[in-house]
C-alpha cells in the first residue's frame, strides 16, 4: 500500500505517462471497488498519449507516487453550448485527501482549458455523491444552466 504524501512534500501536476497507469487503475479501484484496466488503457490512448490541447489527462505526483488524477476535454457546441471545458473524472487517493491535491489538479486542468481558448468549465456529478459535489462547490462551481435527463430503456 502506498503511503500518503508526507506533509510539505513537493507536489507536481503533469501529463499522465504510460508508467503511471497501474497506480491510476489502483486508485480508481480503491475508490470505486472495480478494477477496469481496459477502460483506463483506452482513456490513456485517447487522452494521455495523444497530447492534444483539447484533451487533458493529468496526474499529481508526490513522494514518487501518483496521488491523484484528473481528466477532461474541451467540447465544442455540445448541448448547444459554445466551446467549454468538461471535467469528467477526478480522484485523489483517500489517504492523501484534505491536502489540496484536488485543488491543484483542478487548477491545472483549468489552466489547460484556458490555454485551449475556453473560459468556462463544467462537470456532471451524481446527486448522491456529496463528497465530490462539495469539492467542486468549494472551488466556486455553481449550478450550470442545464438539467440532465434520463429514461429507463428496459
Amino acid at each position, binding site marked *: 500500500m502506498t503511503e500518503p504524501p508526507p506533509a510539505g512534500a513537493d507536489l507536481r501536476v503533469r501529463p499522465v505517462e504510460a508508467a503511471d497507469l497501474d497506480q491510476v487503475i489502483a486508485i480508481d479501484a480503491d475508490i470505486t471497488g472495480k478494477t477496469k484496466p481496459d477502460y483506463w488503457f483506452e482513456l490513456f490512448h485517447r487522452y494521455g498519449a495523444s497530447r492534444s490541447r483539447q484533451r487533458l489527462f493529468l496526474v499529481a505526483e508526490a513522494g514518487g507516487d501518483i496521488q491523484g488524477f484528473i481528466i477532461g476535454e474541451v467540447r465544442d457546441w455540445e448541448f448547444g453550448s459554445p466551446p467549454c471545458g468538461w471535467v469528467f473524472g477526478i480522484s485523489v487517493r483517500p489517504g492523501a485527501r484534505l491536502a489540496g491535491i484536488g485543488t491543484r489538479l483542478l487548477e491545472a486542468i483549468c489552466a489547460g482549458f484556458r490555454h485551449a481558448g475556453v473560459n468556462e468549465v463544467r462537470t456532471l456529478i451524481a*446527486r448522491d455523491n456529496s463528497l465530490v459535489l*462539495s469539492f467542486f462547490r468549494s472551488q466556486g462551481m455553481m449550478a450550470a444552466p442545464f438539467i440532465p435527463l434520463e429514461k429507463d430503456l428496459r
Partner: protein
Amino acid sequence: MKLQISTSLALYSVLEFAASPGHQVSAADIAAKYKVSTHHLAKVLRELVRADIIESTRGVGGGYRFRANARRLTLMDVIDLFEDIGGRTGGSRDRAGSTDVGRALGVVLAEIDDIAKATFRSITIGTMLKLIERQGRAGEKTQIPPKAVRRN
C-alpha cells in the same frame, strides 16, 4: 424555493457566527441586521446551541460563538434542524395524492426536492463564506465609483 423563516434565520445566524470564528457575536446584533424579533431569534439560537453548532458565552458582552467545523457543516445540516424539505411538498400526502394526477404531481415535486436537498448537502458553511466574499467583491466592482457619478 422558499425556506421557513426559522430556517432562514438559522442560516443567517450560522453564517454570521462562522464569519467571525473565535469571536462572540450578540443576538441583538443579528436581530438588528436581519430586522427580526430577538424573541424569535432566541428560539432559533437555542436550537443551534443544542445541535452544538454554536455555544453561548456569558458575562459582559456575552453572545454566541461558532463551534462547528465550517468545512464540514453543510447547509442541509442546519436546515434539517428546522424543517423537512421532502415532507412538505409530497403530493401523495394530501387527499388528492391518492389520485393519478396527485401521484404524478408528487413525482415531479419529489424530483425538485431531491435536487434541492443534494444542493444543500453539497454546500458547506465554508463554501458559503467564500461565495459571500466573492459576491461582495463583485458588488464592489459593479458599483459606480463616486467620481463617475454625474452631478447636475
